[in-house]
């Protein structure tokens, strides 16, 4: 998989700082799990976060804080470490966390959608557009939609309030900005209006997170909107 569209510094920075809402964070984590470039950039931003922490203005802890901690230390269970010689499947399997292979469904998403996209039970919501309700994630401030868009079909033109992140899981789409294939992330600010279209003979499956409900402009799109905020 070759990834051409990456996370913006702004989105990656807010993710790194831990201030993004859950829906957006999930899509960011999903992209990072398959994108070594963004993983590396996240490291660098965390490095900056660490430096800022190390040199932050201290805030007084209560006078017995250290003493309290020291008492608790004895009661802590330490995390066992595998010796270097231990190359059991158990220890090596943790290495797959960042193997940047080519999973159809990136690891962070597997708690919310089936491991294989062919097992997803889609609901049609508009001609050429199907929808899967992802459960188990709070979406109080944002929306999360898994969509399957038939070849040649447009997602209606829409604008956003706040961030909209779209990760392509299968197929591809094209819009005013460019072409987005498997693994690519479209990271759009609120000032962008666009109308993506599935541009090959394969259906495009993509995961879309927004900070706020999409603002569709037409009549039919209200149906999509209805489902995407559920």
């Amino acid at each position, binding site marked *: 998989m070759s990834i051409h569209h990456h996370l913006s510094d702004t989105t990656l920075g807010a993710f790194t700082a831990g201030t993004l809402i859950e829906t957006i964070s999930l899509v960011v984590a999903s992209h990072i799990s398959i994108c070594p470039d963004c993983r590396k950039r996240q490291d660098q931003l*965390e490095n900056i976060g660490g430096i800022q922490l*190390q040199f932050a203005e201290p805030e007084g802890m209560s006078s017995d804080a250290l003493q309290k901690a020291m008492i608790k230390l004895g009661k802590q269970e330490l995390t066992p*470490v595998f010796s270097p010689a231990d190359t059991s499947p158990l220890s090596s399997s943790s290495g797959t966390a960042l193997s940047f292979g080519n999973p159809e469904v990136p690891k962070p998403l597997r708690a919310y959608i089936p491991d294989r996209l062919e097992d997803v039970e889609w609901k049609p919501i508009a001609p050429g557009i199907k929808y899967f309700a992802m459960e188990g994630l709070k979406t109080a401030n944002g929306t999360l939609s898994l969509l399957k868009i038939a070849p040649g079909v447009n997602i209606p033109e829409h604008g956003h309030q706040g961030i909209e992140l779209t990760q392509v899981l299968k197929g591809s789409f094209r819009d005013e900005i460019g072409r987005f294939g498997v693994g690519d992330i479209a990271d759009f600010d609120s000032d962008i209006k666009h109308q993506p279209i599935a541009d090959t003979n394969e259906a495009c499956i993509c995961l879309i997170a927004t900070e706020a409900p999409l603002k569709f402009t037409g009549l039919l799109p209200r149906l999509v909107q209805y489902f995407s905020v559920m």
Partner: protein
Amino acid sequence: MSKQRQFGLESREKKLPDFSMLLLSVGQNQDKAAFADIFQHFAPRIKSYMLKLGSIDDVAEELAQQTLLKVWRKAQLFDPEKAAASTWIFRIARNIRIDALRKQKHFFDDDYDLEGIADEQENAENKVSREQKSLNVTLALSALPKDQTRIIRLSFYDGLSHSEIANQLEIPLGTVKSRIRLAFGHLRKSTHLESGEMA
């Protein structure tokens, strides 16, 4: 706050301890004295980080305690070739804050955050001390103009969006973006940071 103070030139003169060495000693020998040194430095700063991000005093202190206890518990997983001590502690503090405060799940990769599992592109040349790399970034940050360091801080530590920064500093959004662009251009030149798409 002067930028020297913010990013450590002053502290360098004071000879901060080598936190990677201390953390290693905690991990390998359950060294309580080393842990106490780490606690004394980081706990009050983690508390200040939690306060800045909206916790009340008691909660900030409790989260700082939890962070340091996790540092103790997980220290055996720390690998100085994979992360600077400050980066590693920052990740723990951040993840604890998300899990505890927002009662949400964080989506960071715990395996990576604690063990720094190498990605396949990691090569020998990269395996220099992260502490050294971190120092290079510290120096580069402290060399930036003050208006740029402030924005980097608000963006990547306090986690504000560009428009929130614009509101807070009462400057146009375009100025925020151009300062971030300038700052990153500078940092990349002096530390070989990867380039990203500038939003």
